[in-house]
Structure formats: C-alpha cells, structure tokens
C-alpha cells in the first residue's frame, strides 16, 4: 500500500520505534473497553458512577490511539496521556472506595449501583476497579515508553 510511505505530520512515521508500545497501549484500551461493554451490556451489571468516569477515560483511548497507530502519528501519545492519567486516578480512588479505605459518602453514588458493592467483582474474586487500575497502569507505562522513543 502506498500510504505506508506517507509520513503523518509531526509523526516520525517511517522509523516508528514508538509504534509497538503504542500498539500495546491501544490493545490494552481495546480489551478493557470490550471487557467493560461485556460486563455492562451482556452480563447486565449496571456501571456505578465511578465506573462511568473510568469508561469516559478508557473508551476514547481506543479511538485516539487507534488513529495514532493508523497514521503512525506520535502526537497521539500526547493526547492519550491525560486521558490515561485521569482514568488511572479515578480507578485508584475507586479501588480505595471498594476496599473501604475511603468512605463512599464522599461520592455521589446515591442513584444506581453502589461503587463499594461486592457486585463490582469478576467471577466473585477480582474487583473490577483493580482490573481497571491495572489496564490504566499498563497503558501509562506503554505510553511512557512510546514517548521516550519518540524523543530519541
């Protein structure tokens, strides 16, 4: 394909060493998005407020990073980092709420499902916010690696 040779503006497309970590970050976001949709739409678990905020950070990562991969566009790393950072923060906070370190009274969880509920678990063992935190952490590390390679 001829598009392979076109270099995205400001993206070192030709020798894209950052492509692999970018791909890993995107793959994590894609799997997390698919997982969240499966839990919500197929298994019928209602997302709590904090889950929604994490979704808001996670879902666009698929598109932003996906576009970055398509054009080998290094700028996508810059745009994805704040989303991933915000998501990581919310996921960490959610986990603290789930473990009871922070009281839920601070969160407007009045309507819908509770963020501290035991229902926020997969297979009854793994808390969903922990999965989310792991995904955001992985994405952040991959993006950080990608950024370093862009700068080199």
């Amino acid at each position, binding site marked *: *394909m001829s*598009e*392979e040779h076109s270099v995205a503006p400001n993206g070192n497309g030709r020798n894209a060493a950052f*492509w692999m970590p970018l*791909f890993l970050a*995107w*793959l994590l976001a*894609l*799997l997390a998005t*698919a997982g969240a*949709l*499966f839990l919500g739409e*197929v*298994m*019928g678990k209602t997302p709590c407020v904090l889950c929604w905020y994490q979704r808001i950070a996670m879902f666009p990562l698929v598109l932003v990073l*996906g576009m970055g*991969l*398509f054009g*080998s566009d290094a700028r996508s790393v810059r745009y994805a980092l704040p989303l991933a950072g915000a998501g990581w923060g919310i996921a960490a906070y959610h986990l603290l709420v789930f473990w009871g370190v922070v009281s839920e009274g601070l969160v407007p969880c009045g309507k819908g499902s509770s963020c501290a509920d035991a229902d926020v678990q997969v297979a009854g063992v793994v808390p969903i916010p922990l999965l989310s935190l792991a995904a955001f952490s992985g994405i952040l590390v991959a993006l950080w690696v990608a950024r370093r390679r862009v700068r080199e």
Partner: protein
Amino acid sequence: MNKKWIVLGTVAAVVLAFVAGVVVFTNRSNQEVKQAAQTNSDAMVRPHSPIFGNPAAKVTIVEFFDPSCETCRAFYPIVKRMVNASFGQVRLVVRYAPLHHGSDTAIKILEAARQQGKYWEALERALAAQPQWAAHDRPQPQMIWDLIGDIGLDMAKAKSDADGPAIAQLLRQDVADMQALKVNRTPGFFVNGVPLREFGEAQLKMLVEQELKKAGTP
C-alpha cells in the same frame, strides 16, 4: 506487514472474541433459567394470582409484570389479544415483579381493586396513564387512586385493603418466586413453564403456538 492490517486484524479478533463470549454467556444463562424454571415449577402459578381468560385453558402464559414498566404496558394489549383469539385455549396468569420504585404501591392499589372485582378496569386505567405516574426518577403511584375513582370502588375499603396483610403476603410470595425463577427483567414470560428467552412479540407468539401444538389442540 502493513501496520494498518495489524490494527484491523486485532479489532476483528477482539470483536470476534466478544461475539463468541456473548453466545457462550447467553447459552449458559438460558440454561440456568431453564433449570430454575424446571426445579421451581411450583413457583410458576399460585392460586392467589389474577387470571385472564379461561381458567381451564390448556396453555398458560405466566407474565411477571411490573405496572411501572413501559414494555409491560406495550405488551398488555398484545397478550390480551392472544388470549381472546385463542377460543379459551390460552390463559394469562399475572405475577408481579416490582422492579421499579413505587411499583409495590401500584400493585397494592391494583390488588385492592381486585378484591372488589374491578382488577382489569383498574389495571387498564393505570396502564393508560402510566407515563404520568410512573416516571422512574419520581414515581407517584398514589395517583392511581384518582384514576380509578369512578370505576365503582368502595374507596375507603380499598385503601385499607391495599395496606392489609393479605396483599402484602401476595406481594412477598410473588417477589420470592420471581427470584427463584431468575426473572430480572419485565415482562418475564413463561408459557406452560417454558421461559421465553429471546424477547419479542413474534417469539412469544411462536412459543404459545408451540405449546398449543404440544397440548394437542385442534
């Protein structure tokens, strides 16, 4: 390899895995619901429930019903027509699944009307005005009293019946049966004990046809 194809291939793989997951999960939960329906067959029909149609009909549609539920409202005329068109072969048994705020109050009012033989009139009034009283964020089921004020009820008696122990017990039993039968959405249909899994009017009609054939009706 072209990187775009790697991306597209990954998307396709994830979508495929998702669809496979949906199929596996739906099959498994269908199996669970079937199992629940078989092991709890006594929870399907209770003598206290309202029946529409010929009580001795060969085919019984059990509907777990929530008066605040929009889809229940939409299905009411459909099911009624099916019963009426069956020449006494199909009956409807109404069970309650109060899944919304205020549904329990609405059910109590309807049941109080039933004690005076005005159940279907009250139900139809309540369903017709559902958009007014059943807003999910601010339900006002007490409005039903005004809606049924002129169908000839002894209102004082109805109001005390609504809070009486008989109706409370009926509601408790229906909720227990709803949980035993794993009904978590309304309307939840069972036809002669077979759960309607793929939801829809056509699917319900097909299931009823199938049970009519099994029952050997002409």
